[in-house]
Every structure is written in C-alpha cells, then in structure tokens.
C-alpha cells in the first residue's frame, strides 16, 4: 500500500517505530464511486474546455503523464519540506505526562425510536437535546436526560446522512439523498407540523454528506458527494462561497473552534483532508496520508490540530502549525474502518466509532488505546461528545443511539 507521507505508526503492542518513509509517488487519481451504491457516473474522456479553466492555461503538450509527473515531484518536495521539521514524535514529548487511569464508561441511556440505521447526530448547546437522522428518512429531536422524543420530522428522501442543531437550539438542519440541506424551525407547539415550515437552503448536484451551522443560525456549511463544500445564507438560500479542491466525494467537515478564526476542515473519498479559509474559498493546507476514504474529521479543542477517522482502520492527528501528521491511532487487531471521531473536552481523549460495532478510546498524546466500549449491535456511524464534555453519544446501524458517561 502506498503511503502519502512520512508517517510514524505508534503500535503499543510491539513498541515499533519504523523509520520515516519518503513519500512514494502516488497516483493522483481520485476515486469516484458513490457512497450508497448509486450508479457511478461514467468518466468523461473528452478534453477539458479552455473556458472552464479560468485560472490556468492548458497547453496541448500537457498530457496526463506530464501533469502526473509534475504532481508527483511537487508532492515529494512537499514531503521533504515537512520532514525537515519532523524532529520529534508527539508521544516522545508526552512521555513525562502521567498515564491515564482505568476508564469505566458505560451506556447510560439508549435512545430507541428510529426504524432504520442511524446515520448522523448532533448535540444542542443546551447539553441535553440531541437531533438524529436515519436511513428511513426520519429526523428526531430527543431529550437525552429523559430519553423522550420531543420532535419528529419525516423527510421526503431516505438516507438522511447529515443533521445539525442550530446554535440557538431553535432549529435543525438535515439532508441526504435529496441533494439538499433543509432547515426546520423547532416549534414549542408539539402539534404543529414541522414539515410545513421547512426551508430549503442548500442545493448540491449530489448527496449531502454533512452540514453544520456556523457561529449563528444564519449560515450553514455543507459538504457533498459532488466533491464540493459550500457556505449558504439560511434566510435567502444564497450561495456565499464554494470550496473546490477535493477530487471525489466529500464525506465530512468540521468548523474550527470560534476563537481560532474562519477555517474549516473537510475529508473525502480522495483520501485527503483539506483545511479551508471560509472567506476566500481557498484551500490553505492539505493532507494525504490516509490510505482510504476519510469518514470523519474533528478539530482539536485548541484549534491547532485536527483528527480524522478513515476506512483504512486508523485515526490520525494532524498538527496544523507543523503542517503534518503527528500521530496514528491504530492496532493490528483493528481492521474495520473508523466512521466517526471526537475529542473529549481537554483533547486528551479521542473517541472513535468503528464499523466493527465498537468504540475505541485513545490517549491522544501517548498514542495508545485506553478503552474499548461494546454495546452497539451494528456499525457505529456517528459519535459526538456533549458540549460540556460530561458524556458522548453514539449512533449506529442497529437503529439506536447510546449515551455514554
């Protein structure tokens, strides 16, 4: 398997620290297969239209081969530059830190009510309400303390892959195979038909994979199977900014903590994690060390790093100021993809939900696994720590959500 950069695996069992591997030239070809078994679009073999390439000129001599070679040379140069500053490992710096004690985390609540696979969930800022969405088209708002369902909406499409709570707690956004992101204001009147007030905000040309409100109820950031991310004004539905750079479906995104400025990170089927400037639409940094689709990305609480979870069965930590991957969380015994990751409040713990039905808890600094949690009876598809860090919620293809503390 080709590796995209000098990665150092932290394998606790064998204490093995393989030497850096110079980036092998990797094919730049992106994977384009759909995520839910949709028929793949046939590849275009015609030459690009000059009019579309507004910022560069394509010379007739720019064959695929020369472009690939140039790309590979640049990637090698980038790796060289990054390697120069790779003077120490994160776990070495963390050696003096006290090891974590035994963890006792159990399921405290089980939320039952979805009729099919739970695909996504999000916490409300009030630290007790949760919105979740499912393959059967239902979006449910729960009170996590009491397990009561407070609202339920049936979407006109199946596979609602994305849902998010508005910062005010007064609305939720969701979307999926309908290629849209819609916002539903939450009414205090339980009898009111929420679907009647629905507002279509985002329109993509393929499925919606993730969505998130920015710091206010007024803007939503979306990612899509069409390979782009986009920022929308909720009130008018206007597209404010679009983000091009992924070579295949974008599967996940996360906004930087508000103190650290206007950036967000996205991960895709092209194995890349991209960091974007929200104002300019530019990709600021890009990381390609995973060996398969990146299913989940999450900023470190300080904003200086982010974690990713991938179908390659690893989670990784990327340091934004060193501009490189600084840790891999993996074990030989873990062979199923990680679908969802999130940090504890301090960033010391990384929780990963996996396709083998388990949740692995990692010591972010030392690199070892501190706990494995069983309970779900099918893939864990989504996982978020509560806003005050007292618990985390996991959603699964077993139709349930679990609160762990």
């Amino acid at each position, binding site marked *: 398997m080709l590796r995209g950069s000098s990665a150092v695996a932290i394998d606790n069992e064998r204490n093995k620290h393989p030497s850096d591997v110079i980036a092998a030239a990797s094919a*730049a*070809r*992106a994977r384009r297969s759909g995520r839910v078994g949709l028929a793949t*679009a046939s590849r*275009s073999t015609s*030459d*690009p239209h000059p009019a*579309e390439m507004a*910022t*560069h000129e*394509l010379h007739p001599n*720019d064959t*695929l081969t020369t*472009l*690939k070679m140039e*790309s590979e040379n*640049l990637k090698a140069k*980038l790796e060289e*530059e990054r390697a120069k*500053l790779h*003077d*120490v490992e*994160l776990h070495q710096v*963390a050696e003096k830190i006290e090891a974590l004690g035994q963890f006792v985390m159990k399921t*405290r*609540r089980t939320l039952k009510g979805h009729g099919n696979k739970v695909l996504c969930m999000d916490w409300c800022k009030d630290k007790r309400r949760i919105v979740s969405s499912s393959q059967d088209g239902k979006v449910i708002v729960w009170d996590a*303390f009491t397990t009561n369902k407070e609202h339920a909406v049936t979407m006109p499409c199946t596979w609602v892959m994305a849902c998010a709570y508005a910062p005010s707690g007064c609305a939720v956004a969701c979307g999926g195979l309908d290629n849209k992101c819609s916002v539903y204001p939450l009414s205090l009147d339980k009898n009111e038909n929420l679907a009647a007030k629905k507002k279509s905000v985002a329109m993509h040309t*393929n499925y919606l994979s993730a969505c998130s409100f920015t710091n206010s109820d007024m803007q939503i950031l979306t990612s899509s199977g*069409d*390979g*782009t991310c986009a920022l929308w004004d909720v009130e008018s539905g206007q597209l404010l900014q679009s983000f091009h750079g992924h070579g295949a*479906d974008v599967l996940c995104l996360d906004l930087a903590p508000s103190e650290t400025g206007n950036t967000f990170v996205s991960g895709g089927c092209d194995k890349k994690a991209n960091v974007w400037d929200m104002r300019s639409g530019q*990709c*600021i*940094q*890009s990381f390609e060390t995973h060996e398969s689709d990146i299913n989940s990305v999450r900023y*470190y609480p*300080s904003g*200086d*790093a982010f974690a990713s979870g991938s179908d390659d069965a690893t989670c990784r930590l990327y*340091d934004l*100021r*060193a*501009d*490189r991957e*600084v840790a891999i969380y993996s074990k030989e015994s873990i062979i199923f993809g990680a679908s969802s990751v999130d940090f*504890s*409040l*301090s*960033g*010391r*713990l990384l929780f990963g939900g996996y396709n083998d039905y388990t949740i692995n808890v990692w010591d972010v600094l030392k690199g070892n696994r501190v706990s494995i949690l069983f309970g779900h009876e099918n893939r864990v598809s989504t996982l978020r*720590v509560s806003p*005050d*860090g*007292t*618990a*985390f919620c996991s959603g699964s293809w077993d139709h349930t959500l679990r*609160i762990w*503390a």
Partner: protein
Amino acid sequence: MARDMSDKEILKMELDQLQKEVKTERMPVSVTAKELSDWVEGQVGEDPLVKGIPEDKNPYKEKGGCIIS
C-alpha cells in the same frame, strides 16, 4: 464539481494547490507538539470524561434505587 471534471482538470487543480502548499510556513514538531500537550495538560483537570464525575453530579447516572445493607 469533481464528478464533472476530467482527470486532467482534477490533476491541474491538484498541481495548483501543491504549488501553493510548498510555500506554507511550518514550525518544527518539537515546538508544536510541546504546546499541544501543554494545552491539554492545562485543561485535563476540568475534563469530565477523563477525571470522572461524582455520582450525585452526573445527570446521566441512574437516580433512586435501594441499597440493602
């Protein structure tokens, strides 16, 4: 949109991005890793999932029940 782009267009997009990224400012890992771990250490005392929460303060712990002594 990526799905509508030819392989060549995607490569060109990548190439432009790589050219920008080679010029990015970077800091050595020894500095950034230390700051990352210092930041965590400063916060970890207040992290409920790391240090645990007393039974009576945790909203998710079961309330009630009997203790037979």
